[in-house]
């Protein structure tokens, strides 16, 4: 969900004046992703909702001093993660564990020709990917695809889900996400890579079946 800065700036300006519609628009836009990220730190949906509510209240309390120079989105998620961490019991160390625990590749190795064969390391004849069909917005397939994607996103390990949400759902930059989560650029990319690979595989399986 990419949002223009100008649009966000005007919502922040309206919020300063106590405009409820501006608050509602911002809440609508950011809350689902905030809940997903908070859920990676705390034990229950109820606590995640409390964390999200606390974050919005922190914004309201600080709105007069909020600097438009920093993006609202980055501010919200930085505060959210900080509150979630104090409410959650999981530690940052978990990121490293999740990175090192992974052993597989982006694609099932059985889909490539084995070592020693001609064209080893290349796609087997019937295993090469085919283009995804068009799934127009609002179509049944499009809606189902979104539901499948949401379910799979919820199943990912928490740190992959968090990075994928920030990068691909919210459209933050790599630099923003590394800084916000206090992880290296390389680890940020590893988590993104694995999350995307898992989602791609799910969509490929789903679209193959629905053909």
């Amino acid at each position, binding site marked *: *969900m990419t949002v223009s800065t100008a649009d966000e700036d005007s919502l922040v300006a309206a919020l300063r004046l106590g405009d*409820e519609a501006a608050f509602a628009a911002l809440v609508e836009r950011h809350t689902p992703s905030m809940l*997903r990220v908070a859920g990676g730190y705390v034990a229950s949906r109820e606590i995640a909702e409390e964390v999200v*509510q606390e974050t*919005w209240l922190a914004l309201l309390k600080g709105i007069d001093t909020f600097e438009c120079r920093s993006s609202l989105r980055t501010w919200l998620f930085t505060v959210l993660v900080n509150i979630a961490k104090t409410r959650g019991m999981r530690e940052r160390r978990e990121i490293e564990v999740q990175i090192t625990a992974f052993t597989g590749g982006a694609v099932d190795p059985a889909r490539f020709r084995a070592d020693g064969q001609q064209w080893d390391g290349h796609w087997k004849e019937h295993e090469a990917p085919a*283009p995804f069909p068009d799934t127009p917005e609002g179509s049944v397939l499009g809606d189902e695809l979104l539901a499948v994607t949401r379910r799979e996103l919820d199943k990912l390990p928490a740190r992959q889900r968090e990075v994928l949400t920030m990068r691909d759902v919210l459209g933050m930059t790599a630099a923003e996400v590394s800084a916000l989560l206090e992880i290296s650029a390389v680890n940020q990319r590893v988590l993104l890579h694995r999350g995307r690979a898992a989602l791609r595989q799910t969509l490929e399986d789903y679209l193959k079946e629905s053909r």
Partner: protein
Amino acid sequence: MSDAESMDCIRLVELVTDYLDGVLDPDTRARFDRHLGECEGCHNYLQQLRSTVSVLGKVDSGQLDPAFRDRLLAAFRDWR
């Protein structure tokens, strides 16, 4: 194809994220692009990944639970 110039499909799929973020070194990027031009499977793989990213960009639109929205708006009114 010599080893220095070629890139296997199995290797390419691990470099896609770096490729899309523009962080491959120029030599690897050139090999990536050359492979992509010659390999339909990898070309499609990249297309699938781009579609995946684009689908992800839509998953949260209109997903706010109305009951939670009402609670947040009530909190807003209290604050104001």
